[in-house]
């Protein structure tokens, strides 16, 4: 175990040392203290408390006032979490959840995040907002050691759904991401979402589906290994990661996190916005029995949404949004339509929709029943 920990600490040291600059630009650590000051003192400031996914903090869809500085706080927590009935992960989390919480602001707002790395943590962390401009998305301004905090402010200039993730340098980047350190932010247009004709649309509910791919090593008996701490898990996990085949693909951090007692709920006639993020790997959400009425596949609201999609593509390292009005009651499965990942690796959520069945949309004309093989079905021959 000591060797593994040594390996880990060694890797961190390399990641911050000048010699490693050839590895990636993300080793850069900078500050902005000598740049020309901006005066935001006239802007209103608003504190927002984040909530655990799949839920999203209360927010206006159409902004009723001008730009503001929206203040968020997140604490980084390293802890073991259960990701399947028989598998555990030494997770690294934004605010204790995998995925991290979703933030919502409006275009032109300033996002001001205070990021805490508590002293009991083992590692350095930072945050790279895909919604932000410059300094590696904020990554090179936010590298915090255990016991440190930092405050980052960036202007939300582009409306859309975006991933944020930890990117502390070198091989730590993918490892921290597949250990759970990613989340999403949604920057709404000030006047809200628009359909393909530019007409305003709204949603009755919003669900944030954060998808993760996990790489849990197995022991010689084929059982998933558990580790003392993240450092202890590094070497074995890296080996599985480099094979590129995840052992688990989950929604909301755990196989079954959004099924059973935790299934999502909606009512017939409600419009639901599904925001789907994947920080590391491609995905293809599909709502079994439903559609995407309006889909911002790449997540960016300045683009005209696609209509009536069956499945949409989420590029690894992006977040997309799909709006759907539930027309029929029943059980819906929201899956990654790589069905191996959905059924065998975990990427399934359920939505329970109450309402009244509409036979015009679908009817079972003949219930499954035996047919007369001698006389029926001949016309169906190819």
């Amino acid at each position, binding site marked *: 175990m000591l060797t593994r920990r040594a390996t880990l600490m060694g890797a961190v040291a390399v990641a911050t040392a000048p010699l490693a600059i050839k590895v990636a630009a993300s080793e850069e650590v900078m500050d902005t203290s000598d740049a020309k000051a901006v005066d935001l003192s006239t802007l209103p400031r608003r504190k927002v408390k984040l909530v655990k996914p799949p839920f999203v903090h209360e927010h206006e869809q159409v902004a009723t006032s001008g730009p503001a500085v929206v203040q968020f706080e997140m604490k980084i927590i390293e802890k073991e979490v259960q990701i399947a*009935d028989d598998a555990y992960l030494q997770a690294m989390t934004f605010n204790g959840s995998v995925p991290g919480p979703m933030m919502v602001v409006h275009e032109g707002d300033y996002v001001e995040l205070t990021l805490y790395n508590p002293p009991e943590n083992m590692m350095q962390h930072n945050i790279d907002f895909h919604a932000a401009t410059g300094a590696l998305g904020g990554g090179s301004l936010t590298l915090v050691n255990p016991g440190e905090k930092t405050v980052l402010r960036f202007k939300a200039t582009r409306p859309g759904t975006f991933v944020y993730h930890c990117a502390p340098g070198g091989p730590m980047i993918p490892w921290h991401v597949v250990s759970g350190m990613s989340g999403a932010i949604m920057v709404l247009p000030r006047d809200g979402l628009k359909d393909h004709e530019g007409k305003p649309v709204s949603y009755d509910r919003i669900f944030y589906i954060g998808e993760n791919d996990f790489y849990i090593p197995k022991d010689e008996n084929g059982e998933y290994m558990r580790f003392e701490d993240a450092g202890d898990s590094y070497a074995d996990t890296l080996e599985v990661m480099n094979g590129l085949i995840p052992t688990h693909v989950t929604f909301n951090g755990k196989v079954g996190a959004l099924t*059973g007692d935790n299934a999502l709920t909606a009512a017939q006639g409600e419009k639901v916005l599904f925001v789907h993020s994947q920080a590391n790997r491609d995905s293809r959400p599909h709502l*079994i029995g439903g559609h995407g009425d309006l889909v911002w596949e790449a997540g960016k609201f300045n683009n005209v949404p696609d209509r009536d999609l069956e499945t949409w593509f989420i590029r690894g390292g992006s977040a997309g949004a799909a709006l759907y009005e539930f027309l029929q*009651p029943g*059980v819906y499965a929201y899956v990654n339509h790589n069905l191996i990942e959905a*059924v*065998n690796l975990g990427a399934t959520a*359920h939505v329970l929709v*109450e309402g*009244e069945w509409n036979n015009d949309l679908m009817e079972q004309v003949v219930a499954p029943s035996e047919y007369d093989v001698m006389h029926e079905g001949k016309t169906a021959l190819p």
Partner: protein
Amino acid sequence: MKSLIYLSAVLMIGTVAMTSAVRLWPRPPQITDLPETVVIPAGPYSYRPSGDFRIGTRLVDAPRETRTADYDLEIMKYPVSETLYALCVADAACSATTVIGLLKAAQTDISYKDATDFARWFTGMTQQTWRLPTDDEWVRAAGERYVDAGLGIDKDEVDPSKRWLANYRRLVAERGDADVDIHPRGHFGVNELGVSDIAGNVWEWTESCFVNGKVSEDGSRVIEQTNYCGVRAVQGKHRAFIIDFVRDAKVGGCAVGIPPDYLGFRLVREG
């Protein structure tokens, strides 16, 4: 003398058993240390047939029937152990499957075919007829641990989504959280009949097929049924239908619905 007794026993059960053939054992039994069994006396029991049932085209709960068994049922007290299954594998009569290696563990990761292969081998080795229970028989042995498969939805409910949602919620409530640890046999205790580990985390294969049935207008009885035997009923905390070659239902489920934790089996002895 002994073989004569066996012969008469076999002849006697011939009238009861559905699958057994009368046979003469060619050699003495290889296994004489038999697993513990429990006898469930003949008599009435409550049962709901397994499968999909309709009044006309509308799905309804199968009628809950009081049936009367006219024979005593002798069933293994515990599910078949890894130790016992390993003997069958060693004898090349059963296919190797997952071995947990825990002392007294039930054999899991078992398909219907594995279970019936074992029954055939065990019958030969003991020179007694052993087979899987039918779904009815399992219900008899489950006693108070039998979980009624009815949803309690009004048979006149016209909205199919109500039944669907109710079924989902019932499965969630009944199943609770999955228990992924294999425990020694006996862990889940005995029921009032003395049968151990019923409705623990190992679901048990039965002989019974999926039934598509028609129910009388008043919902009281099954008037017509067709069996589909590519899937069999497995019993435990809930009744599930599993394709006969599946060993691990956790990865053999569909998009909605909740699969069994583990698949294993126990046998009944005829006569």
